């Protein structure tokens, strides 16, 4: 009887220890420390997530319409061809393979920016919802990064001059607000680099497609 009582007691205690240890370990992890974010950070995060969810909802609607078109098209080849053609146009534009036009912002930049600064600007534009970006006429793809060449910055093998233009297609207000906000990328860069960076809204921009061959050499698609 005593042994049974001891076993039950030990089981109960071990269970409690286990649960508390798991709780303690979890509380020490660094998943998303929402509680340590300021109200301002949280508000910015809500704005970012809301915009992205809204994009996802729109993409889901488009995809659903596309599935419907395929279903309605059935054996009618014409409909399937139209849907496939639209899909191809969207994907090649998204990847940066073909030229695109639209409203957005242009940044007139003059001075000594290092590759990190240029890559940070590109990252900020992407984060602010830019759909297509070009730097001095070089279309930015997933693989494009600014690197230091022998005498100048280089993107995708093309030299970028000291005075260059960065263009991004997207919401003019959204992009400008993000770039120019206090503590934003432009004000931060001005603290560290000797450069003039002026962002202006543009009603009509036209960005070229990339000249890079994006077809992978070693990566193979998986069915």
């Amino acid at each position, binding site marked *: 009887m*005593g042994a049974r009582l*001891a076993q039950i007691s*030990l089981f109960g*205690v071990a269970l*409690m*220890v286990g649960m508390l240890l798991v709780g*303690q370990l979890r*509380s*020490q992890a*660094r*998943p998303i*420390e*929402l*509680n340590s*974010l*300021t109200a301002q*950070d*949280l508000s910015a*995060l*809500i704005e970012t*997530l809301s915009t*992205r*969810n809204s994009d*996802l*909802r729109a993409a*889901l609607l*488009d*995809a*659903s319409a*596309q*599935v419907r078109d*395929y*279903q309605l098209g059935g054996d009618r080849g014409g409909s*399937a061809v139209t849907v496939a*053609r639209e*899909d*191809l146009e*969207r*994907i*090649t*534009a*998204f*990847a940066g393979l*073909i*030229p695109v036009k*639209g409203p957005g912002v242009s940044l007139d930049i003059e001075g000594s920016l290092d590759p990190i600064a240029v890559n940070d600007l590109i*990252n900020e534009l992407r984060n602010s919802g830019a759909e*297509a970006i070009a730097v001095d006429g070089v279309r930015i*793809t*997933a*693989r494009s990064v600014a*690197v230091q060449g022998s005498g100048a910055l280089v993107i995708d093998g093309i030299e970028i001059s000291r005075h260059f233009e960065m263009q991004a297609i*997207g919401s003019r207000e959204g992009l400008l607000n993000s770039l120019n906000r206090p503590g934003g990328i432009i004000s931060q860069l001005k603290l560290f680099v000797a450069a003039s960076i002026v962002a202006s809204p543009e009603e009509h921009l*036209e960005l070229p497609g990339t000249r890079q061959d*994006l077809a*992978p*050499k*070693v*990566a193979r*698609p998986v069915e």
Partner: protein
Amino acid sequence: MADIPRFTRPQWAVSIAAALVVVGFVGAAQWNGSGVRQQFTSSAQQVLARQVLDLQREEGLLTQQLGAKEAQIRDFQARSAGSQTTLDSLNRQLEVARLAAGLSRVQGPGLVVEIADSKRVVPVGDNPANFIVLVDDLRDLVAALWASGAEAISVNGERLVATSSIYGVGSSVLVNTAFLSPPFRIEAIAADGILDRFQANPAFLGRVKQRIDAYGLEFATATATTLDLPSFVGSTRLRWATPVGAQL
């Protein structure tokens, strides 16, 4: 012969007392930790944090639904392939475009880079933020990998595409629409020699290598003969940009 109990009363009483001490210690630590977190959070912040969590849940659901729809579309296109010459040609072009855009799952040789917060005890007076992985570290590592010839990259399973950003929110990192936390595992498919090129790349040597050495950030690299990178699942819809004169 009478059964001999495995524990006499004093023995198990001591064991339970010791275990209770551990429970008390861990429980107190847990309680204190909760208290500190509670102090950080005002009611307004709690409301905002709840909104963030709701949005994240919604994002997960939307991404899942979108992934399912895209699989359905790929299935339609695969089934219609070969039915007509034009469609067949378009579907082949679509496969190539998806591959270039990061919308296909891919396999290939490459490099795995892992980075995590330092395990060192933060010296008194030192900034604790120096000892954790920062968003700049991830950006530098990814830039170094692209510059070293990577063809496809994923960060903790998030495939990078033309619109992907690596964004810091407090000490958390947002990639595409996913919140990521350390350890960060960056997988890059690339041709032979990627490790040497990566380790010699200025984007790696510039900041992140120095932080790894100075603050003891956990860091490891390994080449792999086969990496399997997921496709990007997210919005590829263009609201503002319109294709120009596409000859498709």
